[in-house]
């Protein structure tokens, strides 16, 4: 009898945000990221029997997700390969200025270092969020990441505003000291 019982119905609540966050910084398209996360859960279901419980469930899911992301890039790259790439280096056939514009650095494109830093920071924040009691993490996420109004959160979770602020305060204090240890 396996000691590690996997409850797949809890996966979405426990890991979807973490996985999504991990994906979005690597594929930078929210729809594709959602699909990849969903695919990861499906793949996880299929290979549940092979999960030996040596790593945490989250680590295991991340390793599946990594492969999904690589597959995704392989797929779009093979499509790219089929397209014809034409590059004209002669200036006379091009309109004036075009040549330069084509080659100028795209400022909106984050450089690898930026992406890496942001990725790691948001993952670090999620790691710290995971250590909080579930309620605190939930309220903090709604208030800080989803930017819901206090009123909406209170209605949804059936708490008073002063309750909310107490929870937020505890969450922030805990997160602060957690990040202090692991990040800053």
């Amino acid at each position, binding site marked *: 009898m396996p000691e590690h019982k996997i409850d*797949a*119905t809890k*996966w*979405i*609540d426990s890991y*979807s*945000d973490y996985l*999504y*966050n991990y994906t*979005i*910084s690597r594929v930078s398209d*929210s729809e594709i990221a*959602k699909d990849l*996360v*969903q695919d990861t*859960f*499906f793949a996880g*279901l*299929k290979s549940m029997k092979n999960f030996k419980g040596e790593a945490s469930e989250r680590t295991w899911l991340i390793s599946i997700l990594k492969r999904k992301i690589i597959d995704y890039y392989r797929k779009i790259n093979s499509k790219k390969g089929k397209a014809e790439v034409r590059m004209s280096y002669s200036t006379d056939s091009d309109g004036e200025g075009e040549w330069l514009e084509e080659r100028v650095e795209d400022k909106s494109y984050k450089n690898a270092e930026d992406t890496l830093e*942001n990725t790691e*920071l*948001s993952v*670090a*924040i*999620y790691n710290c969020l995971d250590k909080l009691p579930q309620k605190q993490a939930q309220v903090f*996420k709604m*208030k*800080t*990441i*989803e930017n819901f109004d*206090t009123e909406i959160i209170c209605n949804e979770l059936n708490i008073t505003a002063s309750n909310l*602020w107490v929870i*937020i*305060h505890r969450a*922030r*204090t805990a*997160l*602060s*000291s957690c*990040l*202090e240890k692991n*990040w*800053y």
Partner: protein
Amino acid sequence: MSCEEASHICDKAQYNESTFWERLKFRTHILFCGLCKKHSADNHKLTEAIKQSKIVCLDSKTKSEMKKCLEQELKNQKL
């Protein structure tokens, strides 16, 4: 003003929900209270870190859709 009140204003300020008078009172408080000053700095650091991290999370609608799909898949697997 008590430290408790000060920390509440400080929390609200992280979400731009504090009033001008509250902020003024808070400023005066941390002139004398080192502990609150430190807490305020930490709190602000956290806000900045979150902003900088561009952290995201899935909306509840997407999550419930995902859950439905996953449960369906689970059922299929058991059959």
